[in-house]
């Protein structure tokens, strides 16, 4: 499955650190230097206390699939289908939900509550995109 066909992200002041870390295989969110709450996506402000000083925190997983879809439609020429897209949450990181692809199992096996490991794969424009790995029971 090739995930490189698609539309790359526009990188901004707020998201540069995320995409740089992704390129190194690390998933990061923002943590408030004041109240320690975690926020995602990164916006340079704590969603809990609105503090403006934030630092990065690594999300190491495992995560849990909140929900999913299997995309069958070829929205772009040469798009490799089908593929599963998952919304992943992390028990130790409330406030962080990350959307990505799912690898490591047939698309028919994806399910709500499935445990997944954090990972990345080559995506559009040379960016590494979130791509979780199914943890099979």
């Amino acid at each position, binding site marked *: 499955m090739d995930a490189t066909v698609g539309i790359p992200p526009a990188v901004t002041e707020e998201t540069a650190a995320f995409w740089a870390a992704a390129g190194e295989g690390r998933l990061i969110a923002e943590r408030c230097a004041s109240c320690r709450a975690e926020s995602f996506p990164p916006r340079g402000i704590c969603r809990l206390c609105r503090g403006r000083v934030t630092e990065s925190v690594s999300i190491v997983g495992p995560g849990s699939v909140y929900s999913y879809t299997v*995309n069958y439609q070829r929205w772009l020429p040469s798009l490799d289908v089908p593929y599963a897209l998952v919304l992943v949450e992390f028990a130790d990181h409330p406030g962080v939900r990350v*959307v*990505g692809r799912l690898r490591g199992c047939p698309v028919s096996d994806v399910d709500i509550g499935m445990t997944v490991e954090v990972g990345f794969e080559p995506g559009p424009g040379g960016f590494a995109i979130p791509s979780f790995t199914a943890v099979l029971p």
Partner: protein
Amino acid sequence: MSGTELFERRVVISGVGQSAIGRVVDRSGFQLTLDAILAAVADAGLSLDDIDGLAMFPGGGAANLPGYANGNLYEVQDALRITTTWRQGIVEGMSLPFYGAAMAVATGQARHAVVWRTVKEGSAARAAGGRAAYGSLKAAAEGPLAWLLPVGMLSPVCQVAPYATRYMHEYGVSRSQLAWIPVTQRAHAALNPDAVYTKPLTVSDYLDARMISSPICLYDCDVPADGATAIVVSAVETAPDLRSPVRIEAMAGVVDGRPSWEQWEDMGRVGFATAAAMWARTSLRPADVDVAELYDGFTIECVWWLEAMGFCGVGEAGAFVEGGTRIGLGGSLPLNTWGGQLSGGRLHAGFGHTAEAVRQLRGEAGDRQVAGASVAAVTNVGGYEAGAALLTRF
């Protein structure tokens, strides 16, 4: 809350007009826009010289999909040779088509305002050989799309689908239940000469249809169309000059939770805060509603509106729509009597729904008329942006 304090009671919807509507209408978006505006103003019983407010949705800069955004407000004003005291072109805040115009007229900024929406998505899809990826008009995914498009969440279908998956999982609602929404709306479309798809649709057609992004199949998606809809909002004191005005009993648009396609805590709750705010502005209750024009960009959005508006309980919409009896023309809550966007055409943002609600309340809905309709519900949703209104006979 006393009725005289509600700004929406100071205005009426005085006219609705539509251009030709179809999968492909071989005329420019500008011509469709003019057709709809002229029809709406005539429908109101007004002349163009009465119009002093213009609004279009979306305003500039919302071109995420080919054929989605069309035209320029000033060009329309120039072509109509009118003077305006109020104008609006927006993207964010489009809770209901007539929301901004109602505020402008209620506060005296305009007396008769026209708001329109023109789509050429049918032509665009035909030219491209299929529906385009969301955001594909730009080289890179900006803002909130930066989290969605690069991983392959390339369409609103993929974006809404996980919430449909979650809803069906939590409440045990099946595709064979949800099928009754597009199936019933198709039967309504057969009675609407302007609908895009009128051929009968069955539950087995639905279950056999190809999956777009699970659990959303082809017939769960609205149909890209060409067409324009215009709506005239007028000051209530001008009612004696109007042909057949319709009241806005109550309206509201609340965005709560996290307004994001992937961060929303539970998109199945979209519309609940909006509906609660709307019901707080009226003494009418869900049982008083005679006809429901609920936004149906996807079947599942209709499901969520049925529950948010209190037409059934949370998780009960599957059972509510099953068999199509309740939501059919003879039922307790006829739903999307024009076919909705699923069969009538993606006129978008609640414009088609509003036009139909007005026709129903006036008794001008032809073969699909709900006898004696005096209260209509209209809702709109775009992901997390939501609006709900009750319209009533004048």
